[in-house]
């Protein structure tokens, strides 16, 4: 019990943050449905067919909507399915953070020294995460119910409960799988390995909706069992067997993780590659890379930058390859054109690519900025910042170098993905304006800079809370642009969103005012973070 309470205490900010995100997400999507779906059956049917057509084009990534003309179907598609992905990411972070992060910090060693068995520790952590998931899923249900109250509608309580159970089951399943995978490699590879396995399982299921050859394999993916139920829409189903399989996967993977944990040494991988014997070296090698500001930061993150650049380039190619199909279907649905008029206007292909690729790229660049801020916060709490400041560098220089390193990294990733986009479009016979591809790709850099500047300020103010607060800020910023026009928010409020300020540069070029605002927000964040850094105590 003590181990469960300790795990809950260690993860309390995650539980609070994801619960808030879940509640806001389902509430806002429910209310948004009443704002945009219309009130008459005919209006809702037209709206539903538009959403169904849109959903069918991203079926390779998300499950198709069921009855999106109803509030239950729409919120399940727009609110709960993305939450399942979000909970899977939370599970990945929570499991690898426990399996290897807490181990490196000595928390696991101390707990085991207190007489807790390894199996009991795994069970306690999984149990605590299940409690956290249940709280967040309940928050999502509360958000839905509050939104339904706004619209004076209702859905069966049992259906809401079943949808919440699905969220808990998929989250727990992903947690246990991540926990198992994290036991196998070295600590520094654990998160990447578990993330790779989860992504592969997700894509196996989602791509099997498009590629028949994968259909026979999809039962290996837990996401397949999540997809088997659609409890919220009228006449929806809850597949008890599929939900039970998710729970069984979680129990089995946690048990295997416990066995693997028993078999390996603390701090070591389960599978240890024999190290070649080598003579101890007392020499300093490769010093030139480390001598120059920015270059040393980029060099240190070289592997991560390569993975980001390669991953985003592949994604750009995939989305380009889907563009012709998307456009063909869009043009066959006249009632969808008004819905997409903001994006399409007169240039269909750049419009659609701008909508698909650059929307995804914005989310990923926001995530890139958050990952850098997480690193800055960790430097503070693990004593590395104190060591850096014991060298003859000013605090302002540290802040500026961090931001400059982010800019350099973002430029490299934007350049690689922009090149991939342009080349893949050319191969597909889609003529893009080269100047606009360059401009739009470059625009991703000041976009990321806004989040990095806000994160820099948060990291200087309170490093322990920085990532959570920045994540909430990014989420609010995204909701601002997605729902701002639906809720008719004042223009200046919508302009606070970096997603809104990014605009449609592939279609219309860079908006000078928006770029200036992005840079102004970044500069304001940079200046205030320098001030905050100079005034604060480090290492206290």
């Amino acid at each position: 019990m003590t181990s469960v309470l300790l795990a809950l205490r260690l993860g309390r900010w995650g539980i609070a943050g994801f619960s808030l995100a879940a509640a806001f997400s389902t509430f806002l999507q429910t209310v948004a449905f009443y704002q945009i779906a219309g009130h008459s059956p005919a209006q809702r049917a037209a709206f539903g067919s538009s959403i169904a057509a849109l959903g069918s084009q991203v079926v390779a990534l998300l499950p198709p909507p069921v009855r999106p003309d109803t509030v239950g179907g729409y919120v399940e598609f727009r609110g709960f399915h993305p939450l399942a992905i979000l909970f899977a990411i939370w599970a990945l972070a929570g499991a690898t953070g426990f399996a290897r992060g807490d181990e490196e910090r000595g928390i696991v060693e101390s707990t085991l020294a207190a007489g807790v068995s390894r199996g009991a520790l795994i069970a306690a952590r999984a149990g605590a995460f299940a409690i956290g998931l249940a709280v967040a899923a309940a928050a999502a249900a509360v958000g839905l119910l509050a939104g339904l109250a706004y619209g004076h509608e209702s859905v069966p309580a049992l259906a809401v409960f079943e949808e919440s159970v699905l969220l808990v089951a998929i989250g727990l399943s992903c947690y246990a799988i991540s926990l198992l995978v994290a036991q196998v490699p070295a600590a520094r590879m654990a998160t990447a390995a578990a993330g790779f396995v989860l992504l592969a399982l997700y894509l196996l299921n989602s791509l099997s909706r498009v590629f028949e050859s994968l259909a026979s394999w999809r039962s290996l993916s837990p996401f397949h069992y999540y997809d088997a139920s659609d409890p919220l829409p009228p006449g929806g189903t809850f597949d008890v067997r599929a939900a039970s399989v998710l729970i069984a996967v979680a129990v089995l993977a946690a048990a295997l993780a416990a066995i693997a944990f028993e078999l390996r040494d603390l701090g070591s991988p389960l599978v240890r590659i024999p190290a070649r014997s080598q003579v101890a070296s007392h020499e300093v090698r490769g010093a030139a890379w480390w001598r120059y500001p920015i270059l040393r930061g980029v060099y240190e993150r070289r592997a991560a930058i390569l993975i980001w650049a390669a991953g985003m380039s592949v994604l750009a190619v995939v989305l380009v390859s889907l563009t012709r199909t998307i456009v063909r279907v869009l043009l066959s649905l006249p009632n969808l054109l008004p819905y997409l008029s903001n994006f399409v206007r007169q240039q269909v292909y750049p419009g659609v690519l701008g909508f698909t690729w650059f929307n995804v790229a914005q989310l990923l660049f926001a995530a890139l900025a958050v990952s850098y801020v997480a690193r800055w916060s960790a430097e503070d709490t693990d004593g590395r910042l104190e060591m850096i400041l014991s060298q003859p560098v000013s605090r302002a220089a540290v802040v500026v170098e961090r931001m400059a390193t982010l800019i350099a990294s973002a430029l490299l990733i934007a350049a690689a993905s922009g090149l991939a986009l342009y080349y893949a479009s050319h191969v597909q016979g889609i003529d893009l304006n080269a100047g606009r591809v360059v401009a739009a790709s470059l625009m991703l850099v000041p976009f990321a800079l806004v989040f990095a500047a806000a994160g820099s300020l948060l990291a200087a103010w309170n490093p322990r809370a920085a990532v959570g607060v920045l994540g909430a800020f990014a989420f609010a910023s995204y909701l601002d642009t997605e729902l701002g026009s639906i809720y008719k928010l004042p223009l200046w409020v919508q302009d606070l969103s970096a997603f809104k300020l990014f605009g449609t540069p592939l279609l219309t070029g860079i908006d000078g005012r928006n770029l200036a605002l992005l840079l102004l927000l970044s500069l304001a964040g940079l200046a205030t973070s320098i001030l905050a850094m100079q005034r604060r105590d480090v290492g206290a």
Partner: protein
Amino acid sequence: MLRAMPASAIRTSRLTKDYGVGRGLFDLDLQVAAQEVFGYLGPNGSGKTTTIRLLMGMIRPTTGSAYIFGLDCMREAVEVKRKVGYLPGDVPQFGSLRGSEIVAYLGGMRGGVDRATVRKLAERFDLDLDRRFREYSRGNKQKLAIVLAFMHKPDLLILDEPTSGLDPLNQQEFYALLREVRDDGATVFLSSHVLSEVEHVCDRVGIVRDGRLVRVAQLASSEQSLEEIFLSYFSGRTPRGLTS
């Protein structure tokens, strides 16, 4: 060869860091002469690390001032750190970076690494610089911290419990290194829990209790052992024959 230095390497005047509820450091007046090895003794939570972090400009004083070689520790922090080698009480975490990369990284911030000095230090403590930081044992992490503090031949070394985690052989090697750098003209400010260590290497000692400096003693001229002096301040007895 001895280096020309100002008479006072460290000078603080009513230096205070008040964390509230009686915690912190209060009214510290301290002078450490150049080319001196000064030991800073006190139990856990007495204010040793707070003093060191104030000197390093990591935390801002509530009141008072601190100077290193005549330079203000907060306003002229960058200049101060050109002259200082620092070993923190908790070795920072460098994850999967290799020892040589950490040396190059922090050395790069000083304009480059003196490879010969690093090699000598690494050989002396038998530290494998090719290994990743997370693979180092606690003792090896401490050895790396020693290399980082000494590698640029600083004029002043500020060391927070420097032998923590070192085995006895490496402790002896460290004491020898301290004597060498002092003979070369460097000043050392060393905090420690280990009385024998301070007695072994220090010229003077300051004793801090509940955030206040209660005594500064010249060790060589004292009639008492350091243990007697120290215990007298933590068992309510008054020490005899000490100069403050």
